[in-house]
C-alpha cells in the first residue's frame, strides 16, 4: 500500500502539475487517474502531500526594495566618474530616481523610433502635398522565431506571426485598404466605413470594416480565416463563393479539394499566438515539429519514429523551448538534445 505515493512524489512532472496546473497537464493526469483506478488513494495522498508541505517565507517590504534599487544605482556610478559622483551625492534620493527614470524613457524611445524607422519609405520632400507623395510598397517580414506588431498607415494594428510577410502601400487608396499576406497575422482594423479593409491570401480575399480577425496560410493545403469580433466577408476566386463570418467562426479552405468549411473556435486557440501562447489541438507529429521550428526559429532533426500516432493537445504560455520539450517528452516519451539552434529528437 501507498507504494505509488513515493513514485509520484519523485516525478517532477507530477509535482509541477500539482503546484501549477494547466489545461494540458490536467488532461494528462486525469487520463493517468482513469487508467489507474486502483491508485486513486495514493494519487490524492501524493497531491495532498505536495500541497501540504509549508515553508516559512521572509518578506521584503516594498519600501526596502526601492531603497536597495536606489543604492544599486548610486553605488554603480561611484568608481566610474568622480565628478558625477559628487553631483549624485548632493541629489536627494528622489532626484536620483528621476535621473534613472529619464534613462529608461530614453531606451524606450530609441526602441520606438528604430521600430518605426525601419519600415518607412525613403524620405519624401517636405513640400510635397499628399497627392504628390510617392506611393511605395512596404513589406514587413518576420523570420522564424520572430514576431512583430505594428501599425498600418490607417491605424490598423497588425500582429505578424513568425515566418510571415505582409505587403501594403505607404498610402492606401481612397476607396480600399488592401494588403497581401503570406503566413499568419491578426488584424485589429481601424474603423473607416468609407474604405473597406481587404486582405489577399492566395485565392481568398477577406474584406472587413472595423473588426478583428486572424488569417493563417501556414498549412500548404489550407487557408484559415478566424473572426474575433465585427464582421468579415470572405470571397474565393477559385470557387466563386462568398461567405459572411460571425464572431467566433473560422473558415477553412482546403485548396486541393476546393472545399470550404466553417467551424467555431473557442477562446484563444486561434489568436493566442499574438500573446505568446502556443497551442496544439490534436496535432500530429509533423505539424508539431513544423510549428516549433517556426515559433522558436530552430531546426529539428528526428531519429527513430514515434511509437504511437501523435495526437498532441497542449497550451504553452510564453514558455521556453526547453520547457515545452520537457513537457512533451514526458508525455510522448522521447529524448531530446538542444544545441544552440539545432534540436535532436530521439525516440
Amino acid at each position: 500500500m501507498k507504494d505509488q505515493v513515493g513514485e509520484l512524489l519523485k516525478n517532477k512532472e507530477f509535482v509541477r502539475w500539482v503546484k501549477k496546473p494547466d489545461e494540458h497537464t490536467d488532461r494528462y493526469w486525469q487520463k493517468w487517474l482513469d487508467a489507474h483506478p486502483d491508485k486513486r488513494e495514493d494519487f490524492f495522498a501524493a497531491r495532498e502531500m505536495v500541497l501540504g508541505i509549508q515553508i516559512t517565507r521572509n518578506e521584503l517590504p516594498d519600501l526596502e526594495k526601492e531603497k536597495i534599487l536606489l543604492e544599486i544605482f548610486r553605488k554603480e556610478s561611484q568608481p566610474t566618474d568622480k565628478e558625477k559622483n559628487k553631483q549624485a551625492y548632493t541629489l536627494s534620493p528622489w532626484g536620483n530616481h528621476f535621473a534613472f527614470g529619464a534613462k529608461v524613457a530614453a531606451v524606450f524611445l530609441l526602441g520606438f523610433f528604430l521600430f518605426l524607422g525601419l519600415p518607412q519609405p525613403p524620405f519624401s520632400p517636405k513640400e510635397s502635398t499628399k497627392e504628390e507623395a510617392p506611393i511605395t510598397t512596404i513589406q514587413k517580414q518576420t523570420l522564424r522565431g520572430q514576431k512583430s506588431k505594428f501599425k498600418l498607415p490607417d491605424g490598423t494594428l497588425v500582429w505578424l506571426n513568425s515566418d510571415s510577410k505582409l505587403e501594403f502601400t505607404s498610402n492606401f487608396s481612397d476607396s480600399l485598404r488592401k494588403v497581401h499576406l503570406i503566413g499568419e497575422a491578426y488584424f485589429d482594423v481601424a474603423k473607416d466605413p468609407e474604405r473597406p479593409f481587404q486582405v489577399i491570401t492566395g485565392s481568398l480575399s477577406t474584406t472587413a470594416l472595423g473588426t478583428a480577425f486572424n488569417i493563417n496560410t501556414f498549412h500548404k493545403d489550407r487557408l484559415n480565416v478566424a473572426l474575433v469580433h465585427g464582421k468579415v466577408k470572405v470571397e474565393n476566386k477559385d470557387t466563386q463563393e462568398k461567405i459572411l463570418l460571425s464572431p467566433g467562426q473560422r473558415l477553412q479552405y482546403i485548396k486541393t479539394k476546393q472545399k470550404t468549411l466553417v467551424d467555431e473556435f473557442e477562446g484563444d486557440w486561434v489568436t493566442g499566438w499574438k500573446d505568446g501562447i502556443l497551442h496544439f489541438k490534436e496535432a500530429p507529429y509533423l505539424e508539431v515539429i513544423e510549428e516549433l521550428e517556426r515559433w522558436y526559429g530552430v531546426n529539428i532533426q528526428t531519429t527513430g519514429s514515434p511509437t504511437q500516432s501523435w495526437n498532441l493537445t497542449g497550451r504553452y504560455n510564453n514558455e521556453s523551448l526547453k520547457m515545452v520539450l520537457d513537457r512533451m517528452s514526458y508525455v510522448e516519451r522521447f529524448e531530446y538534445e538542444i544545441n544552440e539552434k539545432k534540436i535532436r529528437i530521439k525516440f
Partner: protein
Amino acid sequence: MTEVNRLVEVPDQRNLSVLKDQDIPHQECLWDAFRSGCESSFIRIYEIYVSDLFDYGCKFSDDEELVKDAIQDLFVEIRTNRQKLGKTGSIKFYLFKALRRKVVREKNTLLHKIIPLDQITHFELTFSHEQILINQQIKEEQVKQLNIALKKLTTRQREMVYYYFFEDLSYEQIKEIMGFSSLKATRTLLYRTIDFLKSTLTKK
C-alpha cells in the same frame, strides 16, 4: 467537470506566492537585453527576483541587513560587469547561486571562521492541509507523524525539499547549487528523503 479539474480550481495562495522561473516569459531575451545595456531590463530583472532572493538569502543568515547588502552587491556586480556575463537559460538559478555564495562568504568573514553550511540553514518545513478536501487521504494522526518526520530531516535534506517542491529546480540545478558530486548522488538523497516522508503515511 472532471475530478482533477474540480480539485485544482481551489486557489492555494501560499504555494503560488513563490514566483516560478518558468513563469517568466522570454527570460533568455530579458537577460540578453540586460547584458547589452538595456536599463529597463535590469530593473525588470531586479523587480522579478528581489523578493525570492531575499527569502532565499534569509535561509542562510538570520541577519536581514547582511542579506540586503549581499543582494545590493550582487546587482551592482552584475550591472557593472554585464558585458562579461554569459548567457543563461534561468536567471533565477544564476542569481540564487551567486547570492548563496555571497551570503555564506559574508557571514564567515564576519564571524572570522568557517562554519559548515549544514549547521546554519533555516529551511523550516511544516505540514498542514491547504484546504479541507472531501475524502482527505492524509488524516490528522498522519499529519502529526509528517511534522515529526519533517523535523527529523537533515538541513541538507530540508534545503533539497525547498528546491524541489518550492523552487522547481531541476536535478542538475540542485546538484550544482548544493555541490553534489553527481546527479546520481543528488537523486539518491532526494529519493531517500521522499521515501522517508512517505513512510509516515503507512504507519498506523
